[in-house]
């Protein structure tokens, strides 16, 4: 039996893979070894099996399978500090052939992920730019911000609602408080609420996120207090509806059609419900002002609303309305970052095309 097996082995024509190298997987949290090998030259290969031996043990365990075109494998079922070595087994329909074992190797966790270096550098550069311009704004250097079309409409829309004696609906998007669009929307809501407080216009703010609900309620209350109309604040102005996207849309649709607000604001993060809200609002004859950084929903707001703040205009609007110098300073910093991006695109393209440098791999 042993003889016949070794005979088969001797007669085996299948060539095993070579150059099996095992090393610690870099930039990870440990517990993984990366294997590479040179593929077998045989055409009958079906697959490779990865065998592992722990130092001091006699057995080889099959730890993985790789396709015939593969030349690498990550074993992520190992422990840090234990020495392992590997063999790669070539498998064909009828036979197998094993490679020479690799060197022993040990894996360990790393303290820094070098793959993410570009992001770190980018974060540092950007942070410096923003902080620098905020610093300048603090020192009262006057900053110019261009007009934003949708914003001028806010005043007009509020006036119209007051004239008609109808309310204002403000939907601060459907996302959570950690969404930047929601934060920007809260700032704009604060300004809108100051004006509704001044004119005594009814305000309706339905919410889809419970945390945003708490924040929005405080923001509106604060605005009414600041406008000296704390008495006019009614806790039922701001209310939570549900976290189900389309149930929320159904409820807001119902509110628009029943309460018929003169102006609808859709400002924040929206998904597919954007057009459901904006078209229903249009049927009621309301003036509609939208603003979102959801690129996929902008086409619908642009078609169905009277004014739309496109993407970044939303953030700029929140700074513009508040006239807070620190926020305006940040906008200046963003503009310089954009300039930097433009320069990088142009310079990298020129380098890539003329000198054939692989510049794109830097980023």
């Amino acid at each position, binding site marked *: 039996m042993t003889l016949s097996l070794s005979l088969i082995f001797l007669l085996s024509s299948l060539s095993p893979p070579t150059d099996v190298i095992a090393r610690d997987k870099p*930039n*990870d*949290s*440990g517990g993984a070894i990366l294997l590479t090998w040179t593929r077998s030259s045989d055409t009958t290969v079906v697959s490779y099996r990865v065998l592992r031996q722990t130092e001091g043990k006699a057995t080889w365990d099959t730890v993985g399978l790789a396709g015939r075109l593969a030349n690498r494998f990550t074993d992520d079922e190992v422990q840090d500090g234990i020495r392992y070595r590997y063999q790669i087994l070539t498998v064909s329909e009828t036979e197998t052939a094993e490679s020479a074992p690799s060197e022993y190797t040990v894996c360990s*966790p*790393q*303290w820094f*992920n070098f793959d993410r270096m570009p*992001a770190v550098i980018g974060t540092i550069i*950007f942070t410096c730019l*923003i902080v620098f311009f*905020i610093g300048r704004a603090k020192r009262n250097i006057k900053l110019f911000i261009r007009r934003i079309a949708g914003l001028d409409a806010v005043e007009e829309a509020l006036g119209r609602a007051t004239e008609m004696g109808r309310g204002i609906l403000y939907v601060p998007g459907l996302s959570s408080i950690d969404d*930047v669009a929601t*934060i*920007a929307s809260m700032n704009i809501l*604060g300004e809108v609420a100051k004006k509704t407080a001044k004119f005594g216009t009814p305000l309706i703010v339905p*919410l889809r996120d*419970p*945390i945003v*609900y*708490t*924040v929005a*309620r*405080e*923001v509106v*209350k*604060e605005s009414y*207090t*600041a406008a000296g109309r704390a008495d006019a604040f009614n806790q*039922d102005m701001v*209310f*939570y509806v549900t*976290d*189900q*996207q*389309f*149930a929320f849309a*159904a409820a807001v649709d119902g509110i628009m059609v*029943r309460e018929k607000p003169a102006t609808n604001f859709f400002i924040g993060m929206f998904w*597919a419900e954007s*057009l*459901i809200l904006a*078209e*229903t609002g*249009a049927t009621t004859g309301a003036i509609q002002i939208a603003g979102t*950084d959801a*690129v996929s929903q902008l086409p*619908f707001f642009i*078609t*169905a609303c009277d004014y739309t703040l*496109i*993407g*970044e205009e939303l953030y700029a609007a*929140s700074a513009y309305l508040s006239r807070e110098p620190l*926020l305006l300073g*940040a906008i200046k*910093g*963003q503009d310089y*970052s*954009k300039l930097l991006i433009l320069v990088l695109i142009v310079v990298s393209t020129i380098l890539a095309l003329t000198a054939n440098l692989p510049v794109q791999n830097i980023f």
Partner: protein
Amino acid sequence: MKRRLPLMIVLVLGIFGAVAFVIPHPIVKSIDETMRNDVLRIITAFSLVLGVGSIIQHHLIKIRRKAEHWPFSYIALISLAVSAAIGLFGGIDPASPGILPTHIGGFSFHMQALYDNIMIPLASTMFALLAFFMASAAYRAFRARNLEATLLLIAAFILMLGAVPLGRMLIRPLPDFAEWILTVPNTAAKRGIMFGIGLGSIATSLKIILGIERGWLGGGG
């Protein structure tokens, strides 16, 4: 204290969240995962109580004031209470039933049945309303008023025509052209907007961490 403590928390956790991105070491990674999987989910679960409290209060006020259509507020309150009871006591997984029986004979009123036969049809019908709204929005707004509006209209038109067999019958290369618009000018515009959004949102996050952006505090002392 009332402002400084929350701002400190934001600063510390913000720096941690950013730094964890580049440190793969298990000490940092396990804290990071606990943060996402346990801490934030538990805190969010508590916030839901506030939300539910708000919607109940909203409808109770309507009922008390006999506001217009107030009887419908009973529908919202009763369906909320009934479905919550079914879900809490009848279990969420049909395979592991809770203490409340969830079927009478062959008729199941398990949470899964409510989900499949109430939530899904209502949500997908709301979603399907978009087919009508797209038509009416297109009719109302797609007017060749100026260059920009005309280009918007033409691009939409080509894509719609390219998406049906008729487009290819009329003009053979039309579907390819439609695909080109989608993959070239559309990609360019989206990417350009994304750069601005990316920078703007990163700046806002930064301002929150540094305590410059305080809108979320909701004003007040």
